[in-house]
């Protein structure tokens, strides 16, 4: 019975595992080998131990890219979370045309990174962008993102938030809808103010959803590539590079596959560390499901 069972189920799970092993797992392991060798095209690789890692970690361009990535992750993801949470509360408080509004808020999910860059480059065009003109009209400072690295970083952050807010919002909104209305009724009868109800009922019960949304977004924001590549190309003078752009440059512009591979594994390890808590949470859930 058991061997028949396996013989019947194996063909069904095989496609998924063959794809993942051949496209993700084995290539990623091969990257470890690349990262401890030195090689360029048409040259036999030589073993160099951890040299590539030291070289990357001591490269000022890498450090600046890492710093930029961390800044984007920390700012963009937390702003997304705060706004997404407020939106979830707003939607849960009862809105007319809720379905229409939900679809409108979801719209940026459909937009590719390339189109988003077209949009935001136009909106913030330093000479004639509608947002630039509006800011000028209000006497506010404008974003001189083509020359000022910190302004470019703000624009990249805005773009990232715009693209991913729908995701964060939906996660939090679904979790908020799952909180039974009785709890708010009970809190109200006990004389809780709306603020107290938020702190003592909503926030604790949204906890798991907040953790999930945060970790998903940490991990995905850490990979940011296209937005930066298409908006600034990492410039001026590599000042807005992020880790993924640094990796791309090492591999495909400088043909330095060893240091690119070391960067790749630094990314993997960083993602794994970010996810460690998440994985622990999930494992608990998987075993709970199994019981």
């Amino acid at each position, binding site marked *: 019975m058991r061997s028949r069972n396996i013989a019947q189920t194996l063909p069904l799970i095989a496609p998924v595992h063959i794809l993942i092993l051949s496209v993700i797992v084995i290539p990623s392991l091969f990257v470890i080998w690349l990262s401890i060798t030195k090689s360029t095209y048409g040259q036999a690789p030589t073993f160099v131990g951890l040299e590539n890692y030291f070289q990357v970690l001591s490269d000022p361009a890498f450090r600046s890219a890492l710093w930029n990535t961390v800044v984007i992750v920390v700012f963009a993801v937390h702003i997304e979370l705060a706004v997404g949470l407020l939106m979830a509360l*707003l939607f849960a408080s009862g809105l007319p045309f809720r379905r229409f509004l*939900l679809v409108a*808020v979801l719209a*940026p999910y459909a*937009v590719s990174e*390339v189109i988003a860059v077209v949009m935001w480059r136009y909106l913030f065009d330093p000479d*004639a962008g509608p947002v630039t*003109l509006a800011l000028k009209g209000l006497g506010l400072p404008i974003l001189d993102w083509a020359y000022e690295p910190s302004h470019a970083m703000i624009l990249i952050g805005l773009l990232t938030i715009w693209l991913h807010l729908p995701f964060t919002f939906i996660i939090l909104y679904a979790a908020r809808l799952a909180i039974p209305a009785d709890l708010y009724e009970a809190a109200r009868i006990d004389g809780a103010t709306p603020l107290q109800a938020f702190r003592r009922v909503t926030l604790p019960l949204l906890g798991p959803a907040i953790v999930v949304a945060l970790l998903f977004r940490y991990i995905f924001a850490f990979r940011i590539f296209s937005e930066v590549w298409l908006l600034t190309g990492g410039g001026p003078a590599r000042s807005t590079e992020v880790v993924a752009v640094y990796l791309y440059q090492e591999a495909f512009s400088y043909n330095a596959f060893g240091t690119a591979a070391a960067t790749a594994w630094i990314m993997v390890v960083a993602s794994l560390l970010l996810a460690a808590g998440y994985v622990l949470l999930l494992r608990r859930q998987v075993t709970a499901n*199994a019981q």
Partner: protein
Amino acid sequence: MRNSRLITGAGKAVAVAALLVWSLLPIAFIVMSSLKPGRDIFAVPTVYVFTPTFQHYASLWTRWGQFFDGLLNSTVITAGATALAVVASTCAGYVYSRNSGRFHDASVMFLIVVRLIPPIVVTLPLFPIVNAIGLNDTHVVLMVLYATFFVSLGTVLMRTFIDQIPRELDEAAEIDGAGRFTILRRVIVPLAAPGIIAVAVFVVVFAWNEFLFAFIFTATNAKTAPLVISEMLGSMDGVDWGILFAASTVQLAPVLLFVVLMNRYLVAGLTAGATKG
């Protein structure tokens, strides 16, 4: 009392208006600018009233024929990647839904952990390999890459959806002499259709819009629409914004319509995907 309700109502209205502006205005600007006469696109102050013209669409057609090749490539690649991801995820999701035990739990865990690997990491070894076996700049390589980066989420999603189908139905079919594949085709697939659509929505949106893999693995023959648009954006002899907006509108319209029509499945998929995988 009445006053405070008015104030709450006004506050909500302002918040909703701000959300609508934030979410829809950038999209509206793209569409609007694609219809503006060239001189109005960067006019100061911004022009809101103008006679719509299709001149940019006409120039797009005559000057950027490769954009339409890109749309065709995007369509073929999206269809292939979606079919592959949906079939593979449904089969695996069925097995994981109906079997538990240490081996299966560990292998689901493995699928989840794999999602943590950033896609750019695998481009390093895959780039020379894909070149060596002559798959560079083909539809197949992008189909396989796009499907692979979604089968783990797809499998976990399908497991969640198939969990809701009573096992008694499988067992009844089994007593009638149906094998695994027949049960999957005749019982599971029809009942798990919402899950299948949710997975398909994810893959379609991702494959239609993806940039990084298309940028690295295609050159001319299999170039996708987003890649052609990025080339317009990076054009050395100045960006023709009218054509760029027209191309952006054409690339965006179908996927936006798709997301609007499929919003229920998308929300269901996002919710199930985040809590379970």
